[in-house]
Each structure stands twice: as C-alpha cells, then as structure tokens.
C-alpha cells in the first residue's frame, strides 16, 4: 500500500508574511518516505475537494512535515484558521519530486508561493546550491533565512525593489552555470527559466500546478500537455507524472 491518509497534529504554526502560513505537522510515517518536491492533499472540512500543498520541508528525525501556503481562496482561508493542537487530514506523500544529487551544483529559482516547494531539495545541496527567489514586495519575502541557514547562496528580488534586487528573479541567475536547475513559480517565470536552461544546456526541472480532484492519477483531472519520446503531444497528469517535470517534456 503506497498511499495513506492520516490525521496529523499541527505542532507549529506561524504567519510568516501577509496571508502566508507556515505549519509543521507530526507525520512520522509520511516523513519517513517523503521526497522534496512531492505534495500533500489536505482535507478542508466541509469541502468536496482536498487542497494540494507542496511539502516544503521534511524532518525525518522528528517525524514532521512542513507546509507553507498562501490564502488564495476559501479553502486556504479555512486552513489558515487551524491552530496548534488541531489535526489535519492529510493524504501524502504524492507525486514525483525533484531529482536530488548533492554532489552536483544546483540552482533553485522560485517565485512567490512557488518558493516553498524548493526548500527541502535545496537543503540537500547546502553550499552547492544557489537560490534565486522573487517576490512582490518586502512584505511577501519568505524563507530566505531558511535557505541561508542551509548554507545556500541566496539572492532575492522584489517587483518593487523594496527588498533585494529591484526586478525579476531571472535577472539574478545569468551568471550561474549549475548542473541542475529546479524551479517553481508563475508560468512566465518558468518559461524564462526553462529558456535560460536550454540555452546553457542545463538540466531543468519545473514544478507545476493544476486543479486536482483525486491527487493520485485516477480521475485524470489535472491534465498537462507533455511531449512523449517522439515529440508528440499527449495529456499527462500533474499529480502522478509530476508535479515536478523535466522542463523539456512540458508544452510550455
């Protein structure tokens, strides 16, 4: 049995930026097998569909998972109201995560709420990782300290220049030539990053979002256009074939 649903107690909770929450839950069985870049499907009481949230970090030792999420609608607003001591009904770990090969040099590129899925993987690389993350403004900067604590070279951009580089996150990566590039964020960012990787012959993995029902590949809800080996387009599924894909396989 590969999949399971468990009731996981919230052991830490913080609001780390405007409308952005940071939950740590007790989930030893999940933590033992989860990989960076995988996601959890979280039940929101009273709603038919679970909410997919990336696993931001995995603490095997303490048997915990960390989630960082933003309020974007009614479901995430409800989740934000959970307190320490409450339990979340979680289906995890789901999907395919990032390739982790800490001998190599990695570049992580994240935009906004696309940053949390990168943390777990970046931690494996530590000093071998460059992390370029972009946000709307100073009040939305998250996790920069966590990447630093892991030893990564961290570069921050904000749209309005209120923190770090004034401009786009892609401006911060022109000089980096890693073995692998891992990215998550808005589609425009992913396109720019994938183009940069292609130009420079860098292996590139991107994490995608799509609306989901089952979360495990049964309902075929979370379709994404992919290229097969022959370059033909077919419909893959974010929950099972992803959420992390080799960039060149995705019809961007």
């Amino acid at each position: 049995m590969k999949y399971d649903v468990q009731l996981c107690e919230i052991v830490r909770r913080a609001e780390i930026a405007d409308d952005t929450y940071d939950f740590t839950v007790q989930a030893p069985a999940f933590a033992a097998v989860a990989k960076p870049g995988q996601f959890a499907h979280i039940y929101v009481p009273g709603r038919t569909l679970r909410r997919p949230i990336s696993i931001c970090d995995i603490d095997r030792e303490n048997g915990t998972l960390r989630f960082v999420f933003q309020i974007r609608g009614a479901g995430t607003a409800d989740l934000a109201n959970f307190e320490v001591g409450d339990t979340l009904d979680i289906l995890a770990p789901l999907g395919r995560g990032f390739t982790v090969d800490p001998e190599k040099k990695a570049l992580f590129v994240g935009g906004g709420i696309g940053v949390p899925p990168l943390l777990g993987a970046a931690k494996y690389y530590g000093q071998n990782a460059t992390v370029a993350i972009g946000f709307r403004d100073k009040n939305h900067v998250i996790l920069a300290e966590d990447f630093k604590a892991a030893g990564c070279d961290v570069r921050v951009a904000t749209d309005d220049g209120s923190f770090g580089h004034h401009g786009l996150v892609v401006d911060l990566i022109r000089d980096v030539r890693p073995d692998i590039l891992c990215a998550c964020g808005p589609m425009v960012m992913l396109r720019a990053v994938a183009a940069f990787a292609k130009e420079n012959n860098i292996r590139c993995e991107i994490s995608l979002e799509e609306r989901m029902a089952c979360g495990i590949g049964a309902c075929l809800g979370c379709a994404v256009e992919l290229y097969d080996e022959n370059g033909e387009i077919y419909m893959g599924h974010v929950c099972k074939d992803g959420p992390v894909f080799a960039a060149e396989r995705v019809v961007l």
Partner: protein
Amino acid sequence: MADLQVNVAGVSFHNPLIAASGTFGFGREYAEFYPLSTLGGISSKGITLKARPGNPAPRIAEAPGGMLNAVGLQNPGVDHFIEQDLPWLREQGTRIIANIAGNTPEDYCAMAEKLNDTDVDMIELNISCPNVKQGGVQFGTTCAGVSGITKAVRAHCKKPLMVKLSPNVTDISEMALAAESEGADAISMINTLTGMRIDIRTRRPIIHNNTGGFSGPALLPIAVRMVWQTYQKVKIPIVGLGGISTWQDAVEMLLAGATALQIGTVLFTDPYAPVKILEGLTKFMDENGIRSLSELTGAVQAW
C-alpha cells in the same frame, strides 16, 4: 452477520458498492489504499473505440456541495483496455464493468463486440457524458435516442447490459423505460448534472470546456428522487448513484429503489469512504435485523 451480497441482472456482487466510472481510473491507484476486493465492483473509466486525449486543462472546479469536471473521456481506447488493464483488473477479486462511450451507434457496437470475447462482467452504456460532443449524450436525452442506441448495442452485446442515464432531462423515468423496452438488463443513474463556474477575476469559465458535470453530495436528493420515480416504472434493477457519501446516503438510495450503488466523488474527499460506508451498512443491518440488502430496495413508504 448481515449479507451484503446483491445481484444485478444475473451478476452477483459480494457487496453493493461499485466504484463509479471515471472516478477510479482502471483501479490501479486506489489499489494502493486497499485491496480492490473491498469493493463489490468497479466501473471502468469511460472507454471509447479509439484512444482520446481528453479536454484541455482546467478540467476541474469546485462548487458548494460538490465539484464540476470535464475530463472529456481521456482514455487509451478499448483495445488497450482489453489488453493492458482488464487482465490485471480481473485478478483483483471484484466485478468489472466496462463503461463505454461513443460517437455513433457503430462505435458502441464495435466495442460491445470486442468486449463480448473478454471476461468483463457487464457493460455500462454511457449515453450521458455531458463533456464531449462525441460522448453519447446526444443519445441520452430523448426517448428515441435511448431506444435506438440500446437496441443497436443489444443486438451486438452478449454481456449483461446496463444503460447509464443522464439527469439532464425532463423525465428520466421515460428514458429508463425506453432502455428497458429495448432489452437493457439494468439501469444506472445518475450521471452528472451539467453546470458552469466562472472565474470573476478573469471572466473566464473555470473549466476549459466552459461547462462541466456536477457531482458530489449535493446530487443525492436529485438522484434519490430520480431513482424513486424510475423504480415505480421499470422492472429491471437500478444501480443508484449520485452524491452517496455516507452509509446513511447508501441506505436512502436503496430505500428509493436501488439494487446496488456506485460511489464516485466521495473517493476524492476520502479515499477510504468505501470501507466506512460498508462498515456502517453492516452495522445498520445487524442492528435492524436486516438479513439481506434486497429487503431495503424500494422499501420507502411514500406518503
């Protein structure tokens, strides 16, 4: 202990819970939660004669009391199903129903012919998929359409034939009668109600297909009403579905006239729902001295 076994058109199911078409794929994913023999049966994802890529994303939206989908019959085609999926499914210790959809009567008949020679237990005629123009819904919304397609397929189909009805009609019991009179062995009802959600920020329909099929808990009272109306008119067994989420819902559907049940959307909310529903049903039967589920079928006492 209570006997959960039911018999639909000569096929016996060891319990009344069948996974609803399209919500369970070909079973492989949910087999990672529990043995598929937990279920009385599985209705396959809707299969077409040739492989279909399905609709562009987004295919899913949420709504109060349920969800919309417009997957658009993404599937690998009937041959692939027979060769790659059925042998594995067959080993899982549960009944297998092939849910088939098509564009023309010829499509349906060709699929039925191919399935005749396999060991699927039953064929479910999907003439109610609202999400693709070629999904058969053109057959499912008029009596003539239902009669015509049932008759055509019946002539080619050696398996027990179940016709799945659309709720998007004025009188679903008329459709059931049409199917029965042309030789359907059972009716399954209901498919999804066509709905639409709009993203007020982008002013775009949330689902790329514009409209999608509404399923989930809110469907229950509609489905119960339709099963009840139809039970009074047809003699063939009814497999009831639409919004069943709890064992109480299951009992309601049986009382309305269902012989067996399908569950779909609730699996997304809680993959373990079948286990919980079966536990509840068993306890209910034991507590109320109900020996066989068939005692419940149609036992509602109307005012």
